């Protein structure tokens, strides 16, 4: 890995993760609101995320997809993904564009 020109930000990580989709909903995991938290320490990235459904059959693929995508980001030396179920994901957590795409009202109801 080459040293980054400027330090890595959570924004950069989010941007990269927009390349990973939830295959079922067909939308990127960031705008779906599945990525809860991103921690960065030096080149190590901690991603706390969830799935739309517990036991989602695509879970392992999505986690591996996140690891792979971030490993390609300049300056990243390690990626740790933790899948959490609390708080449970709800469509309320989607970004406005995702809500509009799925025709879900702003309040998520």
């Amino acid at each position: 890995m080459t040293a980054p020109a400027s330090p890595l930000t959570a924004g950069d990580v989010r941007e990269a993760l927009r390349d990973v989709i939830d295959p079922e909903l067909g939308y990127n995991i960031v705008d779906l609101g599945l990525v809860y938290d991103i921690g960065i320490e030096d080149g190590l990235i901690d991603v706390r995320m969830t799935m739309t459904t517990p036991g989602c059959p695509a879970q392992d693929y999505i986690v591996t997809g996140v690891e792979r995508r971030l490993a390609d980001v300049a300056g990243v030396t390690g990626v740790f993904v933790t899948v959490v179920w609390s708080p449970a994901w709800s469509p309320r957590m989607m970004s406005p564009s995702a809500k509009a795409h799925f025709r879900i009202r702003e309040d998520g109801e």
Partner: protein
Amino acid sequence: MNASSDRLSRWTPVMFACALINLCLGLLLAVSGLAWPAASAGAPATLAMVHLLAIGWLTLMMFGALFQFAPVITGRRLRSQALALVTLIGVQAGLALMVGGFGALGRAAWADRLLPAGGTVVTAALLVGSATLLVPLIARRPVPLSARFVMVGLGFLLLTVVLGVTLALALTIPATVPLLAPLLAGGLSSHMLAGLGGWFTLTAIGVSYELLPMFMLAPHERGVVGIAILWSGGAGFLAAYAAGLASAVAAAGWIAAVGQAGELAILFAVALYLGDVVRLYRGRRRRQIELHNRAAIGAFVALGLAVLLAAGAAAAGRLAELAPSLLVLLLLGWLSGLGLTQLYKIVAFLAWLSRYGGRLGRGPVPRVQDLVNERGAAVLFVLYFAAVALAAGAAAFGLADAVRAALALALVAVLLLAREYARAWRATYAQRAAAAGPRSLVPSPLVRQGDR
């Protein structure tokens, strides 16, 4: 093989393919004039057709789906993929013997042994499959509602097949009849009730409680209504089953009362369930629902119609006369309809996981939706449910030729749907789109779009 691949049930796609072939064979028996409606309801070819549908199509499809979804429901992995293959081979081989056995009924003594032998092989295979499923299902505490439905359903499957083998022994080995006599008189209705109701319907309810919320983004939690459906349905089917058998031994009034209470409990459970399904669809967060869940409405309507028809016919004392219509609505409308519509999604989903799952994060991949062509398939589902409605209507009026024509239409719809499943499995549509231009693959502007 990477770690991800054991989330996939390896034999499920093969089970689905075998199940669809059995469905087509069953419909072909009806259309050809060998079985009902041209032959009587109890004719050997009719029994072969019914079991091709019940065991070969519905049971095999259900097991294929459960092998994939039991781990999803519970978050535990299946112990063994090989046992799923054992189940598949056993069911398919035993069913072939059973069909041969029905065909040979009354021909030669050795041929008659085929039926009970085949039934025993099927029973053993289903026990293996059930045990494989139960391991993950009971492992998680608290046991999720959908898993409880499946466990109760598997119990009824056991009651169904054991009674089926008993009936087969009595039919083929007259010497056993005196021993089995108490089971014979009420046996057939109990066998049908446990199979179509306790096994298929309760399990389908459980699986639908998993799949409908998952794909419609509706709340999973069914609360007290879900529990009430499980208890009322489970106890109702059990009471009706036991009363059917007991009535052969003693004609006591209380036995009949238990049977009637059971039937009322079943009605109550189905009505509650249908109401809950309406609540689920209304409570969905995903406004625009996908084809498999739009088309599934046809199956729910068939279930509702079947229950109304059964209640009305029983009240009017015309149950026997309307039984064929009821069976068409339940077997082809409700159970097969739900199966065909959900397969449309499950096949695409499994195809995506096995083809593109490993490519996630490495570059653009299609969405699950890109593997199907909903507009084309929508017409096929309309055709299928219309054909089933016609067949049920014609059966009510005893119009055998019209029933056959309608079932031929249903067969065409199934064949064309099978082609759609195969296209989804081979990712034909996604590859066509990819060949048309890389822009159709994600990240597309739509999907990639952020909110900054």
